């Protein structure tokens, strides 16, 4: 039954994915494109993993991931269909490989005992986001890759920063207001960064100041630097040995 359902669904999802990759985003907010791409990019990996998961565990698990693949495509379509326009200039989208590698290197360096044990699940979440960002980046989905990379920066930043004292909280509040004003007035479409400003505002209201601090001190500077240009120091691999990990896509 699972195989029958999967075979019926697969060609449709593959066709939808091809159409999604060809979407035109002219005059559409970068934030919409970023969310749609980040979600769409997970649809086919989940589709292809579903039969393997059904075989390794039980058919119900395969159905779960097949339906998740469909849900990802549906949500991406919904986001892309929203009638929102912008007159601002599109952000300079490109490959974010250097930035991704920089964060990945920092995460690898930080994953040492006791943090590798005590914060095991946090690192799992961060690394899964970085992996997704790399897949989106190499798959020609740069807005989704940028958004997902910044999300990983936020998650890692939350592990790195201290809980701010009252004076620092007040200062963070001011910085957040200034960021909103700056980004809101920019000629460039900075709606991806504004998504994180919104997140920080919500977190501030909930008293989660380490998350606010991570966004203000890590995410927004990373976004600004990424908009200014490509960092130097890309690796030129001289590969002699390859280590391959075959893994579940997103955990």
């Amino acid at each position, binding site marked *: 039954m699972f*195989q029958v359902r999967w075979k019926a669904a697969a060609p449709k999802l593959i066709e939808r994915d091809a159409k999604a990759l060809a979407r035109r985003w002219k005059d559409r907010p970068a934030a919409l494109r970023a969310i749609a791409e980040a979600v769409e990019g997970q649809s086919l*990996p989940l589709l*292809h*993993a*579903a*039969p*393997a*998961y059904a*075989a*390794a565990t039980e058919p119900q698990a395969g159905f779960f991931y097949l339906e998740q693949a469909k849900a990802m495509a549906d949500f991406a379509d919904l986001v892309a269909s929203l009638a929102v326009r912008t007159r601002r200039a599109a952000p300079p989208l490109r490959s974010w490989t250097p930035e991704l590698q920089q964060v*990945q*290197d920092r*995460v*690898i*360096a930080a*994953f040492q*005992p*006791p943090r*590798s*044990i005590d914060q*095991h699940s946090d*690192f*799992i979440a961060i*690394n*899964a986001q970085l*992996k997704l960002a790399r897949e989106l980046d190499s798959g020609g989905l740069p807005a989704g890759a940028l958004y997902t990379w910044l999300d990983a920066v936020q998650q890692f930043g939350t592990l790195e920063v201290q809980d701010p004292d009252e004076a620092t909280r007040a200062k963070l509040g001011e910085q957040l207001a200034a960021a909103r004003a700056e980004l809101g007035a920019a000629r460039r479409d900075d709606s991806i960064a504004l998504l994180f400003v919104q997140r920080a505002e919500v977190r501030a209201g909930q008293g989660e100041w380490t998350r606010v601090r991570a966004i203000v001190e890590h995410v927004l500077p990373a976004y600004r630097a990424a908009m200014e240009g490509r960092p130097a120091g890309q*690796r*030129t*691999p*001289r*590969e*002699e*040995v*390859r*280590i*391959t*990990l*075959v*893994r*579940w*896509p997103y*955990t």
Partner: protein
Amino acid sequence: MSDPASLLAQEVALKYGGKVAFVSENFGASKLAERFGVIRYPALFVDDVLVARPRDFGFFAKGENEGRYTPWRNAESQAKFKADLGRMVELILAGKKDQLRREYQSAAADPPEQVAALPRFSLTDLQGKSLTAAEVEGRVVLVEFWATWCPPCRSTLEWLSALQRQHGDRIAVLALAVESPEEQVRATAAALPDLRIAIADAPAARSFGDILAVPTLFLFDRAGKTARILYGAPPDLHQQMEGPLKRVLQ
């Protein structure tokens, strides 16, 4: 759990300044995993040598702490994983990939769940005839677990069919399909008339231990004792099985 393995493997790779690349491939879309018949994750390869399977991390094992790197959420286990991986890389950089292959194929062939002798299974073949362990007693027995969706299995089935023709009654080759639709099993069987093919039910498959990969090939001598087990489809599978087969046939 894949992500800690990913982070630790990347840390090892980084130490070699670009000589060692790390890649992650998605379950269900990995050609390397398909080639080796890996049906559970995570699996770790160094070049084309399968060096770690789920049970090494405590997954799909009989006990959570039976693997080489278990308990996985433990500093010592993770340090051992990094040390082992570093040593594997060093072997390849020193031109000793064959040594690595021997060590890890040997390890894979000798898991704790290995069956010591031909299990007392009882099945019905595709012709509706009874197929039991008692029926093949006194002969050299080759049992392959395979699946219709596994491309390397097709080649091993053809090779086994040729072996059956070559050795006649001296050997019994049993091809037991798992996780495959019956109509597809029958379609494959139609092209392989020399093979006894059956669909393995769960109790029969379990009686052979942990079938973590397809193909999984068992060789039993005339006394029914396990002579060799090969997991997956490494490029030299036929050569690896020919020596032990020759010995048990003598």
